[in-house]
């Protein structure tokens, strides 16, 4: 991988700015908390726009804006930060969704106590997430990966709904324990590389050169995979997600679904596929079947959910199934589908959770039966709901269309049966979205409560708009996004050509 040094430490800056604002929020007066919170994430978003502008798209496969600071020379630990095409799109997703989450929190009734800590947690989580997507040193990646757990743990535990403590525990234990396997994997990879080369290095670039083949590769693949499969989540390990989502405050769910889950899929592409191609190729049929099982199982589970947040949570799981299936098909279309879907699902799931939160603010319930016809007297909100839902379903023109379409296309390379299976998954996801739309729009109920509802406006409208614009952009101009990352993913796939 080619490395281009940073002309200016943009990455460090975008990690440091939210962290500094977080500290500011903690120590300044209660009055300015919200302004500071928005300002912090807004500035970070602008930095990311500058990076987007300065990024050299002709060399999207190389790591740009690269910075390196030595932490521990003997063990080869370096704080190495940089952005390549794949990181860029995730980085953009992080700054955008964090801004949206914080804008949303300004008028969220659930958040009435401990405001400082709330904005502290969300700004810190933005900072850590940027760290995850931009670090090219495995141990630094791990540190950020693990750190993102803490703000979300507190967000669920402090500002969540009734069962918040149970969910917070469950979330912490699942993620923490699974990432211990990753830690063991990282340590093992480094030591194996040391035994071959004679020097310790946690650097991604050095480990790329190392050849992890045979049993060692399989072992490492499995150790890495356990952690990321729980985070993503894939089906046998998904049970923490509905609980966490069901109890988290709206903004927490937004960040969790839109960005935190993408850490798992991003890491699968970057580390599992990138570092252990041989093992990936060997395990490919199993991995694809896990992905397809996730799609189907989660779609069925979605339809029977009674709680609207759990409903959206399961739909997230099924989308993650698409992402994982697509990436392990190991061809160009599949990779494109996978990464574009990561971004697209970030937008739609965030929007869906905000819809759930918005309705909760009006009706004070997440129960599907009580939501019947609830958007009737809020025309603007109804439009937003319809747009998001159709985009999430995979209608052409919406953001998820490209993910699903390209997945089917790439599955076709392996035979029509596989393509039909994936198509079946897409069918079920359409089914549950239509069911949701029917509940919200068409079911009748007594209108005396509904008539008093005021339509969406202000900050909340703004946060929806920030999401809807990229949704439509992806739908109509997907090449804007493909151009960012395709070279980077091609570079990862290139290693498979030699393997055959």
């Amino acid at each position, binding site marked *: 991988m080619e490395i281009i040094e940073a002309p200016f430490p943009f990455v460090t800056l975008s990690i440091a700015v939210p962290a500094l604002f977080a500290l500011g929020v903690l120590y300044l007066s209660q009055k300015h908390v919200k302004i500071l919170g928005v300002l912090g994430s807004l500035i970070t978003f602008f930095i990311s726009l500058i990076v987007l502008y300065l990024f050299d798209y002709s060399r999207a496969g190389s790591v740009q804006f690269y910075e390196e600071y*030595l*932490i*521990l*020379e*003997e*063990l080869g*630990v370096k704080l190495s930060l940089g952005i390549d095409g794949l990181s860029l799109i995730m980085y953009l997703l992080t700054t955008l969704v964090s801004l949206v989450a914080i804008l949303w929190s300004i008028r969220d009734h659930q958040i009435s106590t401990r405001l400082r800590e709330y904005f502290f947690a969300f700004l810190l989580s933005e900072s850590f997430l940027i760290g995850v997507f931009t670090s090219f040193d495995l*141990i630094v990646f*791990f*540190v950020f990966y*693990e*750190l993102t*757990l*803490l703000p979300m743990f*507190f967000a669920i*535990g*402090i500002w969540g709904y009734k069962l*918040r*403590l149970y969910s*917070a*525990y469950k979330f*912490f*234990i699942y993620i*923490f*324990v699974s990432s*211990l*396997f990753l*830690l*063991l994997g*990282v*340590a*093992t990879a*480094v*030591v*194996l590389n*040391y*035994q071959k080369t004679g020097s310790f290095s946690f650097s991604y670039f050095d480990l790329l050169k190392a050849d992890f083949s045979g049993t060692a590769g399989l072992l490492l693949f499995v150790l890495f995979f356990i952690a990321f499969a729980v985070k993503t989540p894939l089906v046998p390990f998904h049970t923490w997600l509905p609980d966490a989502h069901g109890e988290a405050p709206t903004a927490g769910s937004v960040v969790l679904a839109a960005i935190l889950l993408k850490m798992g899929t991003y890491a699968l592409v970057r580390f599992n596929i990138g570092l252990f191609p041989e093992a990936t190729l060997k395990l490919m049929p199993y991995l694809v079947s896990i992905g397809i099982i996730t799609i189907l199982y989660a779609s069925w589970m979605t339809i029977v959910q009674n709680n609207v947040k759990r409903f959206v949570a399961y739909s997230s799981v099924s989308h993650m199934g698409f992402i994982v299936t697509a990436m392990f098909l190991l061809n160009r279309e599949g990779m494109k589908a996978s990464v574009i879907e990561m971004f697209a699902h970030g937008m739609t799931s965030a929007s869906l959770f905000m819809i759930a939160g918005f309705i909760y603010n009006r009706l004070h319930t997440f129960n599907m039966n009580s939501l019947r016809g609830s958007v009737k007297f809020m025309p603007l909100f109804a439009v937003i709901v319809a747009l998001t839902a159709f985009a999430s379903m995979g209608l052409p023109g919406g953001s998820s269309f490209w993910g699903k379409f390209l997945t089917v296309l790439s599955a076709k390379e392996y035979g029509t049966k596989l393509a039909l299976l994936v198509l079946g998954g897409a069918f079920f996801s359409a089914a549950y979205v239509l069911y949701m739309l029917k509940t919200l729009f068409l079911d009748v109920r007594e209108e005396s409560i509904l008539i008093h509802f005021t339509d969406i406006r202000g900050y909340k409208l703004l946060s929806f708009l920030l999401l809807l614009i990229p949704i439509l952009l992806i739908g109509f101009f997907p090449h804007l996004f493909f151009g960012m990352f395709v070279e980077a993913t091609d570079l990862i796939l290139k290693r498979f050509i030699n393997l055959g």
Partner: protein
Amino acid sequence: MEVKELIGTIELPDLGLFLPELIVLITAFVLFTLDLALSPARKRLLLPSISAIGYVSAFISLFLTGGMTGDTFYRTFTKDTLGTLIKIFEVLITIGVLAFANRYFRHRRSLYGEFYYMLAFTLLASMILVSSYNLIVIYVALEFVSIGFYILTALMRGSFIAKEGAYKYLILGGLSIALASYGAVFMYIYAGSIDLREILTYRGQDHHYLILGIVLFLIGFAIKIGAVPFHFWLPDAYQGAPTPITAFMASVGKMAFFVPVVRIMPLIGEKFSFAWMITVGVIAAVTMLYGNIVALVQKDIKRLLAYSSIAHSGYILAGVAVTETIGLKAVIYFLIAYGVMSAGAFLAVALLERSGGWENTIAEFSGLRFSAPYLAFSFMIFMFALLGVPPTVGFVGKTLVFMALSYDKLWWLALIIILSTAISTGYYVRLVVLMYMKDREKEVSVRERSYLETASLAVLTLLTILLAVFPSAIWELISPSAEILFQR
């Protein structure tokens, strides 16, 4: 032999190598004398200040003599980088403990002068214990540290738990010393020397005595570090001891007792390395599983931390199983890490104990964030560090142990570490949940918190994070100390 010749063989000790210990020794004797001579009112002021002056100057002298290495006192006392590194943290933590002593004991209405000189003597003994290869000196220092701990544990004369703890500790501690010295005898029979370096590099025919010797010696130390199945004294002693003393025992004690074991590590030849790996590995696995499972059901915070201390002995022993430089480095780092975080956790509890009606139960931690935000924050940092969440020393320690284990392909032990860490998540996270996510059940207010106490806790909290974020500061000492040990 003529008298002249005899005098000629006398070599003058190189006091430069012994300077830090000498300072602590003098401090201890001064404290002892003053305790006899002074009136209670003066003692209250003078004894802590003299201790502080003594420890601080010992701390400074450790840095001044940091570059000096070598043997003295007829090769019975060895000053090397490992010893210096451990001693730096021993003295530092003792200073932290000292800051808490005065108010704690006054609150419990049992401030006695012997606390100060016993603390000094115990510190001295643990400093000697970490800097010798001589079996006799190790034996004497071991006995010396232990006697100090017995007395310090029973300092609350009126308390039943304290007496029970001290008594148990005395019996099992006596047994451990007997076993260790018996092991030393067998090693002497094998090699005809009492210097560990010579014993383990000696190429004798009959290995039985050596193996028997090492096994007995190790069992002796296993009792001291609280490895399962020799751990029975530990929770009782930790619970019974005055909390600042518990902090001292858990951190300084553990470091001191582990170092002789660490010194044996590089001397284990190829011949024994497999047997060593299996034996130590199994003990480590059992220890960490047992400690964590039992800690899960504890209601008393001091007992909980005591079982977590047992579990950590297991993690460190897992590193000891790997007789390579990487294993040694992991062990040294983890020892220091554990010293810092356990001292911090126990000292935070010591502070809480001064609040009215505090009974050391876990339930009392509910809503601590509202009544004592900074204390709750630092306690949370210590809990996360003990659990191994980055970026804390506990995390770096676990990473290093994982690296060491995968170096020797001890996957099963690594998986057991993961399993037992998973179990430990239950109780560490429960404390954080109680402190931050529950409403308070009772008002906790620590009366007359002194600046020294706050400063000492703040330093330990900072060290918990900084030693992990900027590890190169102590790595420059860890790395050479491990490599020098392997050069022999």
